[in-house]
């Protein structure tokens, strides 16, 4: 089978999704791509071609002289000022990046938004959104974006939103591998266009703080070991991603790193309406309850489990290391 020809361009983002990609868990990155049928036509960090060489390649793709299987866009699309796209002109061309992306999306078999900026607008669209940033096919959770709600790439799929800030290298590579193998279809996307293999999970799954969560034994300040949902703004029970079962950089995740999940795979995460590091509450009860959980259940379970919290769990929750070790029982486990 012919290799999947991938073109990767960056617009209004930080380049972090590319940097994350290079952290993919493999002993030989180029060999891994080749072995899985992925050919980078061009990538900003990996390719020799520069300047006029790249511009020629883009023109070849648009004119049909070069097959383009997967167009990967990293970073938000900057429509400003006043819709001109001048906040990002592709260097050396004098033309807005938005125009290049629209033309390339028209010839690509698949179009992928790599990261939350390209998917929804992301951090680049936060606050007053000074650059009129949007995603390829979404503006937060509204369909539309640069390419429009009805856009379908030539292969038939809408934009594939590999959301995350940054996105996990495994999410990108699994998607590209599935496309290369012809194993990716419309059923593999969730309602927001994210690949379901990671978006059908919650960050909460596999969280090492689950015992603290069960007893609502809560962290009160940064570096505490307890559950960060009640006070420190953690949205792991609502955020769609497999960060705690598919770890980052070896053995990491946000919650394992000691700080709250900000739900960076979700549209609108950049403007939560409250300080990131605090949990908004009404009458002491967090507003953002776990996905799928009715409020009354949560209130009943939380009060019950708090009253049953073992001393060990309670004390360790507000320390940065284990201060009470699990008891060594004098009898065998039963």
């Amino acid at each position, binding site marked *: 089978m012919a290799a999947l020809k991938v073109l990767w361009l*960056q617009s209004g*983002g*930080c*380049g*972090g*999704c590319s*940097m*994350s990609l290079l*952290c993919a868990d493999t*002993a*030989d*990155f*180029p060999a891994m791509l080749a072995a899985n049928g992925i050919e*980078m036509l061009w990538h*900003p*960090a*990996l390719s*020799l*071609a*520069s*300047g006029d060489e790249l511009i020629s390649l883009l023109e070849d793709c648009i004119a049909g002289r070069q097959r383009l299987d997967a167009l990967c866009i990293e970073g938000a699309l*900057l429509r400003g*000022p006043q819709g*001109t796209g*001048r*906040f990002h*002109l*592709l*260097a*050396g*061309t*004098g033309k807005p*990046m938005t125009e290049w992306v629209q033309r390339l999306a028209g010839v690509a078999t698949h179009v992928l938004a790599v990261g939350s900026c390209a998917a929804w607008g992301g*951090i*680049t669209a*936060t*606050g*007053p959104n*000074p*650059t009129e*940033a949007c995603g390829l096919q979404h503006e937060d959770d509204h369909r539309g974006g640069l390419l429009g709600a009805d856009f379908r790439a030539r292969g038939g799929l809408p934009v594939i939103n590999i959301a995350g800030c*940054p996105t996990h290298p495994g999410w990108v590579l699994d998607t590209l591998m599935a496309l290369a193998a012809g194993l990716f279809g419309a059923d593999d996307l969730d309602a927001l266009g994210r690949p379901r293999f990671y978006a059908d999970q919650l960050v909460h799954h596999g969280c090492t703080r689950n015992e603290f969560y069960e007893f609502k034994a809560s962290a009160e*300040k*940064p*570096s505490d070991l307890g559950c960060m949902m009640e006070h420190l703004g953690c949205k792991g029970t609502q955020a769609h991603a497999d960060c705690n079962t598919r*770890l*980052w*950089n*070896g053995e*990491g995740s*946000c*919650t394992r*790193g*000691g700080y*709250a999940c900000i739900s960076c795979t979700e549209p609108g995460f950049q403007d939560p309406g409250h*300080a*990131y*590091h605090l949990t908004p509450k009404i009458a002491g009860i967090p507003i953002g309850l776990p996905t799928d959980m009715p409020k009354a259940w949560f209130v009943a379970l939380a009060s019950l489990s708090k009253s049953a919290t073992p001393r060990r769990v309670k004390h360790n929750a507000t320390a*940065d*290391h284990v201060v009470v070790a699990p008891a060594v029982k004098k009898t065998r486990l039963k």
Partner: protein
Amino acid sequence: MSDVTRLVVGPFNRVEGDLEVRLDVAEGRVTRAEVNAPMYRGFEQMLAGRPPQDALVIVPRICGICSVSQSAAAARALADAQGIQAPPNGAHAINLMLAVENLADHLTHFYLFFMPDLTRPVYAARPWFAETQRRFAAGAGVHARAALAARQRWFEILGTLGGRWPHTHSLQPGGSTRAIDAAERLRLLARLREFQGFLETTLFGAPLDEVAGLADEAALQAWHAADPQRGDLRLFLGIAADLGFDRLGPGPGRYLSYGAYAQPAGAGADFALARGLWNAADGRLHPLALNSITEDVSHAWLADGGHAQRHPAMGLTLPDADKPGAYTWNKAPRLAGQVVETGAIARQLASGQPLVRAAVARCGGTVYTRVLARLVELARVVPMMAGWLAAIQPREPFCLSQPLPDEAEGVGLTEAARGALGHWLRVERGRIAGYQIVAPTSWNFSPRDTAGTPGALEAALQGAPVQPGEATPVAVQHIVRSFDPCMVCTVH
């Protein structure tokens, strides 16, 4: 000057973000350069009005390649506003994370960003070409591939200390949220030694202390001559001599470092790598007058609000895309009105590294000395990291916590891989009222100022050779990449 031709060069890849360079060329040389950062995102506008602690989430996203540095600057600005200081464990953990990112940047720069240009067909006749291609060809070079694998393993240290990279939130004003225990410390030390093994085998072909101990250029030349192909640094030295990299891309002769790796109280030094302004003309380190920093917007697409130059504490960032005479989104930072260069070369000069001082004394800041300074920094900092790991006291605190006043000001200075990074924060009524960022590449790639003085790269490009028929001149690429630019930081 009737035969002046104008080249518009871009996009530059293998730099972080977007860059365009406009060149006037006459008689095979660049006579004038204008450096344009053609993208604007507006982080300073985004931060206004938010809870101050949100900066810890927003600012790492300025840059995916030096996000820990941005985090550190924000955490320090908040810490300054709060009057809080991290406990020793927290200071060591933050320094370790900064060092992982800094050294990874140097590694990535050398193997993936800088060296591949030496595999271009224009060099096919050089005696070193085949070996350079074998080691560094983009996507195929055996050493470049090994470096990418070493980099991935190296970032696992940051995965443990920071949860993930890029965009960790573990750096806080009061320290690090991720305490490490005694067993984890040992595993981190094992990872450190694994990376050291890569450097000693592949990059240097020599022990780190042998490289860091080279006292002057005569010692460097003798070391190179003893085994000219062994290790990638020696290969680079041979190429640099052949292509005259010690005459290419001269810097302004003034080198700025805010000081790297702040040491905990009582450690005997403020920084592991000292702060200061190294002036090559008098060969002396001068103290920094932070109040003499200004940003000049005369040639940037930014409104000046009645003052073309402002101290960053009073800074203003408002786009004006139609401003006459402007050609970039980058401001022009100046120190006491002067152009300075920042980066590994500045840190090594300020901290008294003898080889880099000797090389700069002979040939100034050039493509050769910038690359050399980065590689020397790799050899110097890895052993420091082992010391910081050893100094961590498991079970002692990593992070303190304290409320932030509703009215406060703070400055956060740090060294990113590319040099001096500063954040200036003002809090009013519990919200961010002002936030200004001056990034390393803002210094190095600044446009002209009100006086018409070109920025460091603009001046460094003057005189660069352009071969007949070159649309993207290779010498220009070497000079640009020798600064390891980070354009997304620059225009934030």
